């Protein structure tokens, strides 16, 4: 008997090509600057808490609320508030030039145990497959986040568009 099944679909996986087509995907130039939000949402679900919560008003959904969020990346300062409010858990903040060799990806985390700063974990892609080693730099918790922690993980730069999950 098998221990685990296998995938036969691409469901749940947005291709990089598709993500790059989304409104407000940071251009190459914007990625070079300070941390910026990446919203990987591409279905017309009536939903807009990201627009509501952004303190810089960088995210726009408008009416009807089935519109996909669009981002003014110049206004976005990578504060990470939108990461934990998103019901789809599909918002990330990416700091491409965290240092000379590494990028930093902020992602939502709702499992136990929570990782701890300094831990070395596996950086995984959108399929949950480990692609590189990653180091936990920050774990942001707090009552306002309603138990969706935000984990900042440092990864080799070439994976800044790939790593969106961790495993340990």
């Amino acid at each position, binding site marked *: 008997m098998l221990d685990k099944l296998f995938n036969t679909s691409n469901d749940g996986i947005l291709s990089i090509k598709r993500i790059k087509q989304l409104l407000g995907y940071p251009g190459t130039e914007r990625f070079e600057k300070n941390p910026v939000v990446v919203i990987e949402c591409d279905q017309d679900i009536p939903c807009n808490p990201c627009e509501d919560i952004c303190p810089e008003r960088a995210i726009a959904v408008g009416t009807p609320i089935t519109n996909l969020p669009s981002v003014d990346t110049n206004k976005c300062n990578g504060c990470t508030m939108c990461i934990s409010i998103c019901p789809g858990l599909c918002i990330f903040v990416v700091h491409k030039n965290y240092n000379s060799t590494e990028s930093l990806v902020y992602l939502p985390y709702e499992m136990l*145990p929570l990782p701890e700063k300094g831990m070395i974990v596996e950086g995984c892609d959108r399929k949950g497959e480990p692609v590189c080693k990653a180091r936990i730099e920050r774990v942001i918790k707090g009552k306002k986040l309603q138990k969706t922690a935000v984990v900042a993980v440092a990864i080799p730069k070439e994976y800044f568009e790939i790593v969106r999950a961790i495993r340990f």
Partner: protein
Amino acid sequence: MKQKEARGIEMRILEHPILDISKDRKKVTIIVDGKNVDAFEGETIASALYASGIKVHRTTAKFKEPRGVFCNKGRCTDCIMKVDGCPNVRTCNTMVRDGMIVESLEGRGEWEHLYE
């Protein structure tokens, strides 16, 4: 500690990333087919049984097939057992009580003695 290690053999969730699991529920004991089973006040018989690894509540009358929890909300009646002498009690919506006697059912259960 990983959740599985914290759980041990019992299937009780001791910590959860979203829910606040209460640490001070009152322990009670129910007697299931003669054996003492730990339970907590405020839970159903079915959840206490499941937590102790007991999944089979009864066997059917004709084909003697095992049955247990299915809908868990009092609609399907698959989870019935004899409780404090009364047969065919839905265990998924009956709360435990300290000293409650729970017995597996074979077939339909007997009612006669209740009217003696």
